[in-house]
């Protein structure tokens, strides 16, 4: 039975602050300073959860981040946090936690039935079983059984911060070695930070050497070290970047405000990094070594001294390391009876004392009694590998002291190598990694004085930029490696969370999964939330045994961040909700909203799709708006259209190199449509280029291509055409675009006061003039995407809303209307105007869409020109843009519909790219890419879409006003 120890045990808890909490619906009590695990242990709650695959009963195993068993879900609703390690969760008033991976409860779990089928579920069973009649039959059930906790089903109400920092020296780990290094670095003048994953400093020794830790901490603060507690470094990345997660507001707290700062993600790029991450205790492997009551020895001592919790009354210590003896002695002094130290080794180190405790040498634990709690164990003497006399020991606690595994993660992530120390049975860092120096237990140095001296020397050397001291020889714990016993009953577990046993490792070796990386993936050892912190070394040692290789030959699996689970919220930071994908708004957005705009998202912009009236649908609104534009006039917001200004003596020459057409021959005030190609010759953007001066051009791009095209121009000028004198300035957001189109467009603009020099008779189509309206500068482009007489008034963005209001005030007398994107699509389809990316794809060349006229006559080697003479570019079977008209004149064609000679399966002849019902013509029309389209005008083709077939005529475009009289007049 576990219970609470009297003071002075429990240096981390405050007995004056009792707290109540609930676990699986039952109420318990603890103290402030407890973790959920320590509080449950104090209340003798030994059954915490069920293992992943076999649903075996499990209890608390460790006292830290390496915990594989005590995984719980905390909280409810939007603040539910799954898969929290109870060993790290601070107890708070009203905390509510539940077991995971069990139903209906941890006490009675239906999933335990899988245990009965354990022999059918060895490692990799899903590669060999559940195949007939089909894996799909079993997949849903097996997927439901996978996983541990339950994710929240509501958006996270809290927020997360991200902070960058750049101290000179960063120490990861707040143990004695880390503190010593930080003190030395700070005293030598370096700006030094120290990250401690836990709330308390002191690391592996802290709760045994309180006075020394307090002294070092005071020295660190006095020297100016910035200490961040509850900040776990989870990875080191390129160029010395350490990422750490600070727990600001722990899980499970009640009565929090609606939104709190939960966690803070630190991105710390230090000049030097000191890894003082400590070491994990390694367990022994014996049958049923997963029962509640089997724990790590150091953890039991930590619970006793730091939390004042006895994990049991009578303990057996299973040992293969000298460390067991000091721990046993300390536990005994704290009030736990040590039944025996069962040491598998024949001899122990000379300095080790047993202190009156019974010691059994060359003896191993061969059986554990009790399912939901340890009731006893059987030990057997081994002499030369033959089991001898056996004895049953009554105990409620079995402690593992099998040696240590240095936490080499940061060193390895930074690219550092490892070497194997045979005498201590551990991998230690070999040399330093890029920017990362290891000190203390994680470097394999367990002697306190030696570790402190080395750490101080390292801290000072890093601060002064001097050569690093030689690392001391590691080890000193006198560990030996032992393979699991043969000829014993029961599962001997290697990876506790994923239920990987010695038999599974043997199976992997038998099936020739000899690489340690294959072992990991085939058996799933080391793939749980604990990432094998207490099992990876045992697994590779065992694989070595079965395949006749020494540990350095087997090697370790690759160390990858994160070291411990990181919440997605912390990674997302502020980039959530509306900030996940910020959308751009028109400068006159509010004005449009006030005038009935129905906004949709087009690319990065929120734009009016239409301005529906009297409950009409978007489609009806679009047809109505388009019809009025053709008949009278319409007002459109074209502000998102990309705008660039080009200046310089070489601007004309530059544009000739960028565009398919020739822009250097433009007269001042003249404008021309141009297309841009990639070096593959494919269409990437289009727009109107206008000349405002001898060395001054106004370039419109497509909305989607605004940033892309500006970047492409910049790359050409800075990287390739470095001798051209051209400045490119993106001005998309500087100017609003008020577009007026329709037969009455000029009448309308005249009525609001636009100067007479802009009248159609005096300003030709495809020209641009500067003008003013009541002192507001305008750049007026007479152009048309609708096919009607059109004026684009470019106005400073701050004046856009005012100009829209001024123009729209006269709309009633003109009979004009606001129109949106959908209406614009109808208008441009009627004219056969293509939209890059809709009617073209990544293979479409200018000749495919009828834009190749004049290329041969152009001298400049424009971008993509060479690709236009590739064999594929000259292939007669290329897709070409044509118009389609359904024969029955009723049902519109579907965009994406396939043109094929007969019903599928059939070779594809082309596809429909744009489609609408034409109000001007009264029947549906479409644009399509069709093989040899330009030679098939007049043919009938069949269009297939989701089981339907439509017959259509291939026609030339434009469908309407082919000579363009309406816009040129």
């Amino acid at each position: 039975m576990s219970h609470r120890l009297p003071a002075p045990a429990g240096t981390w808890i405050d007995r004056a602050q009792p707290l109540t909490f609930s676990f699986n619906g039952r109420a318990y009590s603890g103290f402030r300073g407890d973790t959920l695990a320590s509080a449950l242990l104090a209340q003798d709650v030994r059954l915490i959860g069920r293992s992943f695959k076999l649903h075996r009963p499990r209890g608390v195993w460790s006292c830290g981040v390496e915990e594989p068993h005590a995984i719980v879900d905390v909280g409810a609703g939007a603040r539910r946090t799954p898969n929290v390690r109870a060993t790290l969760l601070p107890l708070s008033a009203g905390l509510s936690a539940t077991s995971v991976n069990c139903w209906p409860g941890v006490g009675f779990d239906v999933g335990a039935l899988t245990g009965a089928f354990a022999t059918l579920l060895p490692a990799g069973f899903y590669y060999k079983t559940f195949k007939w009649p089909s894996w799909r039959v079993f997949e849903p059930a097996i997927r439901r059984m996978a996983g541990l906790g339950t994710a929240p089903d509501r958006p996270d109400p809290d927020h997360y911060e991200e902070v960058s920092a750049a101290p000179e020296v960063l120490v990861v780990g707040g143990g004695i070695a880390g503190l010593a290094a930080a003190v030395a670095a700070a005293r030598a003048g370096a700006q030094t930070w120290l990250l401690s994953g836990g709330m308390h400093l002191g690391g592996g020794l802290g709760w045994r050497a309180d006075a020394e830790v307090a002294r070092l901490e005071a020295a660190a603060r006095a020297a100016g070290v910035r200490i961040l507690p509850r900040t776990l470094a989870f990875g080191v990345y390129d160029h010395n970047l350490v990422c750490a997660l600070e727990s600001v507001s722990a899980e499970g707290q009640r009565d929090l405000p609606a939104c709190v700062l939960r966690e803070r993600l630190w991105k710390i790029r230090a000049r030097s990094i000191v890894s003082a991450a400590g070491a994990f205790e390694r367990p022994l492997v014996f049958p049923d070594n997963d029962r509640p009551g089997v724990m790590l020895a150091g953890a039991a001592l930590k619970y006793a001294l730091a939390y004042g919790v006895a994990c049991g009354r009578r303990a057996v210590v299973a040992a293969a390391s000298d460390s067991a003896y000091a721990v046993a002695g300390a536990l005994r002094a704290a009030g736990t009876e040590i039944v025996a130290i069962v040491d598998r080794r024949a001899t122990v180190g000379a300095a080790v004392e047993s202190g009156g405790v019974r010691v059994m040498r060359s003896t191993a634990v061969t059986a554990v009694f009790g399912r939901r709690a340890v009731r006893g164990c059987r030990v057997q003497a081994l002499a030369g590998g033959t089991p001898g006399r056996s004895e049953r020991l009554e105990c409620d606690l079995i402690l593992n002291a099998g040696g240590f595994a240095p936490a080499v993660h940061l060193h390895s992530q930074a690219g550092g190598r490892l070497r194997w120390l045979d005498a201590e049975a551990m991998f230690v860092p070999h040399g330093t990694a890029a920017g990362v120096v290891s000190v203390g237990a994680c470097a394999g140095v367990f002697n306190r004085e030696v570790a402190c001296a080395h750490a101080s020397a390292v801290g000072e050397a890093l601060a002064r930029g001097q050569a690093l001291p030689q690392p001391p020889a590691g080890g000193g714990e006198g560990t030996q490696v032992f393979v699991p016993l043969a000829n014993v009953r029961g599962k001997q577990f290697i990876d506790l969370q994923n239920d990987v046993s010695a038999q599974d490792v043997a199976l992997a070796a038998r099936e020739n999964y000899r690489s340690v990386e294959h072992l990991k993936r085939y058996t799933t050892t080391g793939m749980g939330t604990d990432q094998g912190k207490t099992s990876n070394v045992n697994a590779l040692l065992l694989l070595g045994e079965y395949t006749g290789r020494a540990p350095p030959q087997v090697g370790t699996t690759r160390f990858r961040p994160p070291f411990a689970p990181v919440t997605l919220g912390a990674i997302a930071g502020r980039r959530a909700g509306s900030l996940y994908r910020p959308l751009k708004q028109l400068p006159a957005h509010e004005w449009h909203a006030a005038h009935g705009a129905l906004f949709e998202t087009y690319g990065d912009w929120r734009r009016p799709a239409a301005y529906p009236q009297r409950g009409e649908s978007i489609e009806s609104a679009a047809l109505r708006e388009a019809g009025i534009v053709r008949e009278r006039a319409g007002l459109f917001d074209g502000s998102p259209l990309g705008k660039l200004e080009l200046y310089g003596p070489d601007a004309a020459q530059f544009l000739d190199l960028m565009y398919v057409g020739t822009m250097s021959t433009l007269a001042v005030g003249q404008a021309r449509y141009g297309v841009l190609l990639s070096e593959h010759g494919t269409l990437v953007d289009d727009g109107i280029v206008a000349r405002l001066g001898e060395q001054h051009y106004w370039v419109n791009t497509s909305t989607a291509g605004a940033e892309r095209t500006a970047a492409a121009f910049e790359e050409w000028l800075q990287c390739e055409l470095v001798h051209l004198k051209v400045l490119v300035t993106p001005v998309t957001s500087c100017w609003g675009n008020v577009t007026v189109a329709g037969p009455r467009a000029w009448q309308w603009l005249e009525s609001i006061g636009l100067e007479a020099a802009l009248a159609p008779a005096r300003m030709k189509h495809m020209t641009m003039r500067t003008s003013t309206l009541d002192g507001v500068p305008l750049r007026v482009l007479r152009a048309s995407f609708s096919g009607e007489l059109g004026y684009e008034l470019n106005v400073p963005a701050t004046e856009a809303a005012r100009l829209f209001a001024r123009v729209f005030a006269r709309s009633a007398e003109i009979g004009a209307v606001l129109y949106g994107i959908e209406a614009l699509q109808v208008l441009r389809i009627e004219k056969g105007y293509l939209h890059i990316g809709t009617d073209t794809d990544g293979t479409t060349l200018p000749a495919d869409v009828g834009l190749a006229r004049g290329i041969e006559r152009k001298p400049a080697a424009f971008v993509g020109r060479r690709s236009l003479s590739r064999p594929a570019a000259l292939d007669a079977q290329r897709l070409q843009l044509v118009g389609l008209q359904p024969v029955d004149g009723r049902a519109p064609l579907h965009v994406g519909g396939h043109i094929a000679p007969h019903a599928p399966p059939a070779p594809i002849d082309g596809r429909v790219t744009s489609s609408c019902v034409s109000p001007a013509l009264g029947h549906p029309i479409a644009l399509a890419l069709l093989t040899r389209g330009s030679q098939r005008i007049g043919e009938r083709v069949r269009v297939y879409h989701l089981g339907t077939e439509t017959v259509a005529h291939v026609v030339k475009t434009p469908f309407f006003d082919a000579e363009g009289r309406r816009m040129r007049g």
Partner: protein
Amino acid sequence: MMQLRCPCCGPRDESEFVCGGTTHVPRPDLNSSDVSWGEYLFFRDNPKGVHLERWRHIYGCGSWFNIARHTVTHEVLAVYGMSEPPPAQMLNGVP
């Protein structure tokens, strides 16, 4: 996330930059063969070692510049201007 030293702005996080791929790739002229043009478009060396590439400080000053980066360790061995030739020792592939 690497840290790159922009020639104008100094050391900044990789997220402020955009990579422009291999640098110093000669562009064949209009009279080149289809094979050499195709190799220019589609073929690039993929060295396990020093790679010469261009980056743009797009969320900063907007400048393009060249770097020599070791593709395994990500060590940046040189940073030089867009119009400059690579430092002599880079050309041998030996940092």
